[in-house]
């Protein structure tokens, strides 16, 4: 069973890690690209 566990663990952890990396890159770039917010008027 250890080969099966290893196969699933490798596949799922690599895909989850890559998806998380993509998500973080996207959110960071989105924040940088967003126009600066105006400060609220007093």
């Amino acid at each position, binding site marked *: 069973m250890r080969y*099966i566990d290893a196969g*699933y663990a490798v596949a799922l952890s690599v895909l989850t890690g*890559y998806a998380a990396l*993509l998500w973080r890159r996207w959110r960071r770039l*989105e924040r940088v*690209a967003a126009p600066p917010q105006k400060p609220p008027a007093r």
Partner: protein
Amino acid sequence: MSAGAATVPRWSTRSTRVVRALGAASVLSVAATVWLGLWVTPPDQTQGNLVRLVYVHPPIAWVALYLAFGIAAVSSALWLWPRTRSRFWDRLAAASVEVGTVFTALTLVTGSIWGRPTWGVWWAWDARLTSTALLLVLLLGYLAVRRIPADADARARRCAVVALVSAVDVPIVHFSVNWWHTLHQQAVITPDLSPTIHGAMAWTLLLGFVAFTLAFAWMLVVRYRVEVLAEHLEDNELDVALRERRSEGPRAAEPLPTGAGAGHDTTPLVTTPTP
């Protein structure tokens, strides 16, 4: 080359309901595949419990070989064709290749983990395995070519050519089990869509194909958006640099000196603008 904020369509950078739904559907379907594959389906008559790896390995290989590489090859051809040339195709090909590289590496790793208890070796110079490894090298080559500094059009042209040349390997991978005597088994799902496995196993395998296809689609969309935003920021930085350079006055517009003594020009390239 300048691309202002208005030139980037909102749909291509922002999160949308469709993308969120796609992400949720891929997580749920992958979880269902794992649950069915590990706990519900019975062991195989000849392979025993090792058949459970078949619910992830062929779907990952399907995404890597046919989906990712198919999209990259078609997008590259559409970019090279003058009538359909658009930055969209270049970005789509780049996104597909990067995500496809991850899936191709996983294809080799999960196949190797299945091969060790089945064949007794982690790796064999088998036609299917070798041609898939070659594909991974070609994909890495594409990503390397993409990182060579160049004008956007020149980079897109080089990458499109690399993708199309690499695409020759895909039919070799596909037909390798028929053309040569290989360790790798023949296809379990034939072109007339009649699987040679049956019942819960076939449905779990089918669900695996759907699940990893959805996961690939989500990754492709997000990777495409990263590409759009990165290019947008790069163009903006170039615009700012050009504006700063122009604001330095006519001296900055003079051509750079050539010939003897050219290397001793001490004029700074960037000066602080005077108020």
